[in-house]
């Protein structure tokens, strides 16, 4: 992997990222995310009276569940529908570069949205004794979780021309992976499958990080998840290429 290779990804990704900010979609997305997330958080904040962001990070995965498919749905589907994919893939770039550029630009966009939600920890630390560790963990976990959702959504978007289908399928897929390890699902799971389901659940790994414990197990799980779907994505793109 040389410098040129990364530079191509960077240039492509940057173009994609500015593409978001040039369209109103970005602001609708960020606006919806901030209003809904902050609103739900402050609903109970003063009632509980605790200087903690725990509740925020409890809502976040559910919020991302809707928002990340909204970001990824158009990424491949639109290019395919409008035919620009032919142009993109005839550029002197590899499929991996195209996939990574799209993935990292989407992730950078989510990171920008998360950055704007930093007004919450700033406010809370002003009102009380906010522990920094779990907040750092929460944001890191949020980024990893978003990465996982995005990689799955991106892969699904590459399979279809229809954005709506891409959205719904990505939502269903993310939801499935998120809840499969949750306690309320595990209760009714068969005994032998429960540990595997717990391992597969994006949510159970997320809450582990969000409570302030960075465990190499959880990190590796996220990296594996993201890698797997990006790899599949690259494979799907390259197969279309032959036809």
């Amino acid at each position: 992997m040389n410098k040129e290779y990364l530079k191509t990804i960077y240039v492509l990704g940057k173009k994609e990222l500015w593409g978001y900010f040039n369209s109103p979609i970005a602001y609708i997305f960020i606006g919806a995310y901030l209003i809904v997330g902050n609103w739900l958080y402050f609903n109970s904040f003063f009632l509980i009276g605790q200087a903690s962001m725990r509740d925020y990070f409890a809502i976040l995965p559910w919020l991302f569940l809707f928002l990340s498919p909204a970001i990824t749905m158009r990424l491949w589907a639109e290019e395919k529908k409008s035919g620009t994919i032919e142009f993109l893939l005839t550029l002197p770039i590899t499929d991996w570069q195209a996939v990574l550029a799209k993935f990292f630009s989407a992730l950078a966009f989510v990171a920008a949205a998360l950055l704007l939600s930093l007004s919450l920890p700033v406010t809370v630390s002003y009102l009380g004794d906010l522990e920094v560790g779990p907040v750092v963990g929460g944001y890191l976990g949020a980024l990893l979780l978003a990465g996982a959702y995005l990689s799955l959504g991106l892969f699904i978007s590459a399979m279809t021309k229809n954005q709506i289908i891409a959205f719904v399928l990505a939502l269903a897929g993310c939801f499935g992976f998120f809840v499969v390890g949750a306690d309320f699902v595990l209760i009714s799971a068969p005994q032998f499958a429960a540990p595997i389901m717990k391992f597969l659940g994006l949510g159970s790994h997320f809450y582990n990080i969000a409570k302030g414990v960075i465990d190499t197990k959880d990190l590796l799980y996220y990296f594996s998840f993201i890698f797997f779907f990006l790899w599949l994505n690259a494979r799907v793109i390259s197969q279309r290429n032959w036809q």
Partner: protein
Amino acid sequence: MMQKINKITKWQKQAGFGLNVLLVLGVIAALNFFSYQLFHRFDLTNNKNYSLSSASKDLARELPDIINIKVYFSGNLPSQYISLKQEVLDLLDEYQNYSKGKIKVQVIDPLKDKEVLSELRSKGIPEIQFNVLEKDKYQVVNGYMGMVLSYGDKSEVVPVLQDVSNFEYLVSSDIKKLTAKEPIVIGTLAGHGTLEWEKEATKADKALKELYQVQVVDLKTEKTIPSTIKALVIAGPKEKFTKDELKAIDKFVMGGGSLLLLVDGVKIDNGLSASKNELGMEELLSGYGVTLNKDLVLDVSAGMASFNQGFMTFNIEYPFWPKVTNGLDKSNPVVSRLQSIVLPWASSISISQEVATQNQVAYLAKTTNRAWHATSNFNLRPDQVPTADSADQYTLAAAVQGKLKSPYDQGSTDKARLIIVGDSDFLKDGLLDTGDNLAFFQNMVDYLGLDEQLIGIRAKAISSHPLKEQLSDSSKIAIRYGNVFGITLLAVGFGLYRYYARRRNKRQPETE
């Protein structure tokens, strides 16, 4: 023919693709599997809530001999206990790592072996019933989640592992108990209208008995307090002490015993009427440089209490229940890691200058500087308002450590340890769960009965971070909507700016 070849190559490609997917999945699965054997955790929480405290590490490092820990988890446990099991085993792993082989952990599925089952019965680990949803029906499943720690021929049993938050404390205190040369005895004073632990303060009683051997001392029948007792707890006396009884207490202190006094200056009876608590302890206490004032302290920072009026029940901040948050002494291990305690109907305490200069005195809990106090005609109604000129700061709990002289000429000691709290109600069931009251009590007993070491572990279970001050409704609204819409408007504003900037840039070439 051509078509056939095409079909075959397509089929080959698809099969190859499927094989590739399986291969990648296999590698990922293997990597993740190994990551479960070899992992590292970075704990970002301030109290290191999810890793062992230094006290436990030291304890594990300095073990004199081998401790065997058997953990019993039956294989049929409902899935929601999987994370509990994981966390328990993770923490035990940490102990093992630090013990250099002195701690041996064995995980046993008791259902697999009949002999183990009868062993469990004899050890007192109960069979627990769980509801498991199976084939869309709730079924009752019997299982075990217990632990036995053994050291030589002694053993400590944890019948049910329920809560991981106090697990480290449980293990460390059990290890401490097992390896202690002799059990630590805490005395509780009976009679004199003191708190009836088994009726009024069952939770505090249980917490005390978990770690210590508790011995009840009745001065009506015993003339002296046995010196085997490390610390004597006098909680909530309501009747006068005789001089002989006070002398016995004094003798105990002069002999090196520690004293935990939880005494109300004003007693409140069930009908919410208040009267001064005449105990006759003034001489003894002033000999130790302490005065318990016969007053009730009210504070703007107060705990919530519920009141009935007709059919209505309402919860309000009750100024007679001072809530101490910032007034906790950050430098003292007893309270340094607590976030808040609520002391219902507490009296203030004064420390004499002489004792304060000679000894280590810690003002464990102080009210805000906007507190006031009632000294007579006690009116306990919740609608009390402070008068502007009476605002002051009061001490509600203090610790004295060092040199004390007997007020009854029974000698002196250099190693006195004494804590006085102007309240005993906080120990009662229903109030002990408020804030960090339980930890406050346990820390005080630990401080007096044990080394200060164990206190470090307990503070872990505490995760309460209350907001610093009461906010007015308007500032709450400002904070809320500032965060909800303010930031959003900022982001959208940036978007509009960009939009117009781009439009201008696009137009410019045309106008040129």
